């Protein structure tokens, strides 16, 4: 069995979604290390936990996901970020990618879709 090589931080204002992402992860290479409820918490958790992967919601209170992606990438250009959002228009996805996200998964998602997106994120 592969030892975890990637450390995952989940950022979403929904507790149901945070727990779902943690539970749905089937990839042994990925270790869940923490969760944050908004962009401000995500920046704090990043400094504490040093994740290598982040899943990021966009519509959140305090600091939205787009701003948080930009700040995280500036701080850690190697960080791989998968945006997971209900905002389904193409311009939102393009904007997230331009800010430094590596992928975009639209809500709602199945466990299989999530794992496929995570596999792509880690280049497996």
């Amino acid at each position, binding site marked *: 069995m592969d030892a975890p090589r990637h450390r995952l931080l989940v950022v979403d204002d*929904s*507790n*149901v979604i945070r727990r779902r992402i943690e539970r749905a992860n089937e990839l042994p290479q990925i270790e869940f290390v923490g969760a944050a409820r908004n962009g401000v918490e995500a920046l704090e958790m990043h400094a504490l936990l040093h994740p290598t992967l982040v899943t990021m919601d966009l*519509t959140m*209170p305090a600091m939205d996901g787009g701003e948080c992606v930009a700040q995280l990438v500036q701080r850690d250009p190697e960080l791989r970020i998968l945006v997971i959002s209900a*905002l*389904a228009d193409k311009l939102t996805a393009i904007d997230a990618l331009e800010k430094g996200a590596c992928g975009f998964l*639209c809500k709602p998602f199945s466990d299989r879709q999530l794992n496929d997106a995570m596999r792509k994120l880690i280049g497996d």
Partner: protein
Amino acid sequence: MSLETEVGVFIDGVLNYFSTSVQQGALCGTPHLALSEKPELADYTGVIQVSGKRTGLVAFTAPKSMLSVMLMRMQETDMSHENLCDLVGEIANTLAGNARRDFGQQFQISVPAVLSSRASPVPYPDASRPIVIPIDWRNYHARLIVCLN
């Protein structure tokens, strides 16, 4: 976009939500204008305010029993009031957010507000007539309320 097309966008969103998130399809009944100014609410309601090119709100309202079963289908073990509120808000957010695929980026949505009483006031726009989309899932009945100027 015609009213019929707009309603179709939300119906597609509802059908996709249930088949993807809980892997069990829902059926949508015939959409209709609210019979009274204020459509009846169920136990929990998630409300998304819409601004930008369109203004108004999108609300998803469902009974506690239905939300609890949906959480179970998601393998969630925490059926607390807080998690039921969280889920109903997340569903409303997802259905409103998915509509941007057709309405565009100028269809701006708020973070969800959650009401956990059938008597809670919903901030409908003045002089508006909400459209109600009935949703049947298993033996449960929910509604999507769309009220856009």
